[in-house]
């Protein structure tokens, strides 16, 4: 951790944590610019953008609906001395700018043999928001994880999002920052003083001994609820939140699995070739012999996200599915 244990902690919402983080980086670094206006999606938290705009209006730009154009604008601005935070709003829209993200931003530093850097942050609201249907519910982080050159931060608490924003803006690389709108109202303690939370340091959100649950973004919250239920069944679950998957705190994940011998990976992206697959494969490779049961993945089913509420609920990783998966690995034994 970059800062000493904080003195005063206050409970605020995740959205407030975002607003604090954005405001603080705007205050502290005059290279920071905000491109876009949907950091808080279409939730009532949008008013927070208005407050930020009141103070920093001249450093906020609402671009046209031209993702290729304004993401590319962010890349060039970063190359030439600004620290843009580009908001692509709903994660599904990033596919409109995909070539700029994966062909340009991700490759610049490498292709130039280290001559040029792209210190920009790309923000999206990802995931199954509730009746977003198939074109407003994406979690593109799995594809970006297979794209070297982009760091990926997936905060799950007010403290994490606020602290990771500081690290993201200070980082000289493109950083993909995905929030989940269902996190906005989650509350948690945040220190008064400014705190930068480093990338690549996982947070054990709950300690346990029987089974490790590695979860990302909003799935951390759900997994913590599951851990409570599991405790009721006498199962002690450890919830590990990587917070960033690029870089990934491999040691923290492997240490936990080595301790519990069982792993459930919870991620809201599609199951096939998803974030959970990479984590499962990595753990199997590295600590195969300490696994006492097969790894279970709890992820969105491999269908586009349907609109109808009962269908959506059936597709997404629910509390019940996480609990069932953990119980299943507890019942299984290596033959």
């Amino acid at each position, binding site marked *: 951790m970059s800062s000493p244990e904080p003195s005063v902690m206050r409970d605020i919402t995740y959205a407030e944590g975002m607003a604090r983080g954005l405001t603080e980086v705007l205050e502290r670094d005059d290279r920071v610019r905000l491109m876009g*206006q949907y950091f808080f999606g279409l939730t009532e938290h949008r008013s927070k953008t208005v407050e930020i705009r009141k103070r920093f209006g001249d450093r906020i730009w609402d671009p*046209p*609906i031209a993702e290729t*154009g304004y993401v590319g604008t962010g890349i060039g601005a970063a190359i030439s001395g600004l620290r843009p935070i580009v908001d692509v709003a709903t994660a599904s829209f990033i596919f409109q700018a995909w070539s700029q993200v994966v062909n340009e931003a991700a490759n610049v530093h490498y292709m130039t043999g280290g001559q040029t850097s792209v210190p920009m942050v790309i923000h999206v609201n990802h995931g199954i928001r509730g009746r977003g249907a198939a074109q407003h519910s994406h979690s593109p982080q799995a594809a970006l994880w297979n794209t070297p050159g982009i760091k990926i931060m997936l905060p799950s608490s007010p403290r994490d999002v606020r602290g990771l924003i500081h690290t993201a803006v200070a980082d000289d690389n493109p950083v993909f920052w995905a929030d989940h709108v269902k996190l906005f109202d989650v509350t948690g303690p945040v220190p008064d003083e400014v705190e930068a939370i480093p990338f690549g340091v996982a947070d054990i959100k709950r300690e346990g001994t029987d089974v490790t649950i590695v979860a990302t973004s909003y799935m951390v919250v759900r997994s913590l609820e599951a851990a409570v239920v599991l405790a009721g069944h006498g199962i002690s679950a450890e919830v590990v939140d990587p917070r960033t998957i690029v870089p990934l705190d491999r040691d923290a994940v492997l240490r936990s699995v080595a301790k519990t011998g069982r792993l459930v990976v919870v991620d809201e992206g599609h199951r096939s070739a998803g974030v959970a697959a990479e984590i499962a494969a990595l753990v199997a490779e590295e600590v195969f012999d300490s696994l006492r049961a097969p790894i279970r993945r709890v992820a969105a*089913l*491999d*269908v586009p996200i349907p*609109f109808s509420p009962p269908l959506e609920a059936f*597709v997404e990783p629910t509390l019940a599915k996480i609990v069932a998966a953990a119980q299943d690995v507890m019942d299984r034994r290596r033959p």
Partner: protein
Amino acid sequence: MTDDREALEPRADPLAILARMWLIRAFEEQVSALYGKGIIRGLLHLGIGQEGVAVGAASALRAGDLVFATHRAHAHALAKGVDPVRLLAELVGRTTGLCAGKGGSMHISAPEVGFVTATGIVGGNIPLAIGAAYASRARPDDRVALAFFGDGAGQTGSFHESLNIASLWRLPIVLVCENNGYAEFTPLSAHTNVERIATHASTYGIEAETVDGNDVVAVRDAVGRAAEAARGGGGPRFVEALTYRLRGHYEGDPAKYRELAELSDWRAKDPLTRYRDRLEADGLLDAEGTTIGRIEAEARRRVDSATREALDAPLPAPDDVTRHVYAS
């Protein structure tokens, strides 16, 4: 009066057109109410105030022509003859919905009446419509494709790429820009220096017309000319219809970014009122308002029964969820 599950064709009589505009208005007001009660959820974009463009354009097409719509598509769909019951059922996520509850408001689709699909991606439907026109040209058949899109789409790359290809290949397509002055929450002037989206059409040698979108007859005539020219091998045509949405960008949008004066100006230009007045002037409607009263009542009755029917329909079962990912 024509059945509202039919496309309004060029021969449709004025009262049928007025009735269809009223059906759409009543439908969207109902949808808004159901949203307020939490019966309809999700992201909902209403086109109240833009009925003139939807009905004007759709009524200038033939039944076999194909329409590709936007995220604000209820009016486009109903104007093309989509069954209001199945549309409502979709909005409330029922199995009897147009898309069996998988699409929702932004992804409605009814190919059997030539309403191919809507899209949740701004500008995303324009290349699709170009492709349908290409298929007609390659086959060939005498269908015309029509793409609705907003002024916001005018700043997307796909829009420009599409104009270029449509012109190069002289495709049978009508591009209808519903210029309501706002791209989501932002006035057009904050998104481009180009005042009229139609300007870009002429860049690619595409004939364009700009019309009063709140005048259903003006839209119908312009789109009619465009469609027949395109059908006759004349290549693409562009119609920019200037209009205004009387609601926010989505249900729940406080729309603080707009002046009240602006709003009331446009209320005065409500396409339904204007067409009613015109028909009265032409003597097609009695001044006492009995006919118009009957039309409005009929529209509301139709929407109420559609609502009941939709809500009585079953919700999907969990195992429906894995169907329709691939062709079986």
